[in-house]
């Protein structure tokens, strides 16, 4: 059946020039309820199935568009790239894999760091990109998230990290592992500065990402039914030599076991984040002059 497309592959990861989202006019079958959905409707519903509320995976750009007021933000630290420090090669060279992923996604690595306003509150958001080598955390992801936290410390602005990652990036070896310690150390400083850190966990969040910043939120908030865990389900099944029950390592399971503060539907996420940040003491930023005016002033001074 050619007229609809399996929607398992991550969508909406793209920059404006390079949309990798499912092209308009295509139909998507919901893995939750098997309903065939018009893609445009799905998109206007933030990629949540209107019938069963299944949350489709979305990319970092889409995420930022949902969270920031008027879909406007400033991106930071875009010039960082991995040098392939291990000269890693498996069935193909990591260098080539990286190049191909950069070309396909238009991104330099698996996270976007942005500042902007969320319901008028100044915030720092780091959004991970699952389409970029499984959202895996190597040295660039580690460095960018650390810098996002440092922006939060410097400007005293709440930090929100939206996780979507299979964990540490194998091809950068123990350097990837060390990013867990690096980011956690930065979070210790944010913690002492009493600036809020909210971890938003989306499908999937596993491995070294879960075992570092994703579990260290002052508040840990997950999207419904996201896979969240340390060891992957397959590894656990090999350990215990039996099938895992349905719902194991899903958001609802983690909430029940005390690891999350709340589960929030994507369509409510922005409002809930804003409310919580206000309750934790964040105050709305002063209204900024329109961009044109700021530019004009700058020009006048020259």
């Amino acid at each position, binding site marked *: 059946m050619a007229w609809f497309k399996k929607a398992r592959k991550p969508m909406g990861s793209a920059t404006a020039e390079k949309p990798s989202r499912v092209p308009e006019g295509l139909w998507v079958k919901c893995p939750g309820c098997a309903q065939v959905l018009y893609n445009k409707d799905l998109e206007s519903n933030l990629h949540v199935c209107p019938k069963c509320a299944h949350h489709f995976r979305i990319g970092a750009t889409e995420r930022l568009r949902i969270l920031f007021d008027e879909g406007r933000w400033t991106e930071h630290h875009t010039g960082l790239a991995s*040098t392939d420090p291990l000269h890693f090669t498996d069935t193909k060279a990591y260098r080539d894999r990286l190049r191909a992923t950069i070309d396909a996604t238009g991104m330099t690595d698996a996270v976007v760091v942005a500042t902007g306003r969320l319901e008028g509150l100044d915030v720092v958001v780091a959004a991970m990109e699952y389409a970029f080598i499984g959202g895996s955390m190597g040295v660039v992801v580690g460095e960018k998230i650390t810098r996002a936290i440092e922006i939060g410390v410097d400007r005293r602005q709440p930090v929100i990290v939206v996780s979507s990652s299979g964990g540490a990036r194998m091809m950068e*070896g123990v350097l990837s*592992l060390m990013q867990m310690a690096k980011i*956690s150390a930065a979070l210790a400083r944010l913690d002492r500065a009493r600036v809020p850190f909210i971890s938003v966990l989306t499908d999937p969040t596993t491995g070294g990402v879960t075992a570092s910043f994703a579990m260290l939120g002052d508040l840990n908030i997950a999207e419904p039914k996201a896979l969240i865990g340390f060891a992957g389900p397959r590894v656990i099944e090999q350990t*215990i030599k039996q099938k895992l029950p349905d719902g194991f390592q899903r958001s609802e399971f983690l909430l029940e076991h005390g690891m999350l503060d709340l589960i929030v539907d994507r369509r409510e996420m922005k409002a809930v984040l804003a409310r919580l940040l206000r309750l934790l003491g964040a105050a709305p930023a002063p209204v900024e002059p329109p961009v044109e005016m700021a530019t004009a002033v700058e020009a006048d001074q020259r």
Partner: protein
Amino acid sequence: MPIDILDFEKPIGALLKEIDALSAQPRTRERQQAIDALERRLEATRSEIYGRLTPWQRVMVARHANRPTVLEYASRLFTEVTEISGDRRFADDHAMVTAFARYKETPVLIVGHHKGGGGDTKQKVYRNFGYAKPEGYRKALRAMKLAEKFGCPVLAFVDTPAAFPGVESEERGVAEAIAVNLREMAALDTPIIVIVHGEGGSGGALGIAVGDRILMHEFAIYSVIPPEGCAAILWRDSNRKVEAAEALKLTAPDLVRFEVIDAIVPEPPGGAHTDHDRAAALLDEPLARALAEVSAMDPAARLEARYRKFRAMGSVGIRES
């Protein structure tokens, strides 16, 4: 104690057998000379083989059943070793040892994974083969907070395949337990020396491995994933573990180059498992030196240096335009 002979150690095994056979016979002058000659050849053979170990061979050495455990180092280097137990929340995890002890007059806290090495199967099961659960990481943190409170340096001995990948680990939040340790150890106001002496198995190792100095044994490994797991995922064939071990750059010399560890602790010629006494003696000097260096620092400067150390991790692999 008979020592397991690894595949690539066959020449060593053959010499050991000859020595054993000669030693079993009544002692004569000639026989003793023959034994002495064999011992010399043994030492030379060991140095030769261990001088050119492949990464995968190092993995096998790091996992050797007779590799000294944290408690074997403790009994040789420390006095008044007194184990403490429990996380005060759920259980006592035997895969994680916590003990107060004295190291050259100074009270210290020892924290370390224990695989049950050198013991029988029952011992290994008791220690869960060194796979710590959330309660193990929380036990370690509880003990480290005590060390901070009472001004004891922390000596963390790392030797684990991984954190326990089981249902109860996930239920009780092993990821959270490790994450909290990473954050708290970064700011723990007491000297921390980390010794990766066996298998540094990913997050399970890192969960007690944030510190002011990171020492690593000559034939130890430290990796983001076991080579078998890496091979299964990237090569889709766990038998490609030899290549994976090569690619992962998990050896001590690699990690010096990547500025992940500070110093390599030498081992006896055939590996730490051949001679625990000598292995402990070889650790003593670098450990004492590292501890003296960081203990002499002003506490605030030490914490700042620890932060900078980890803040810089991975910079060697980044290009910024």
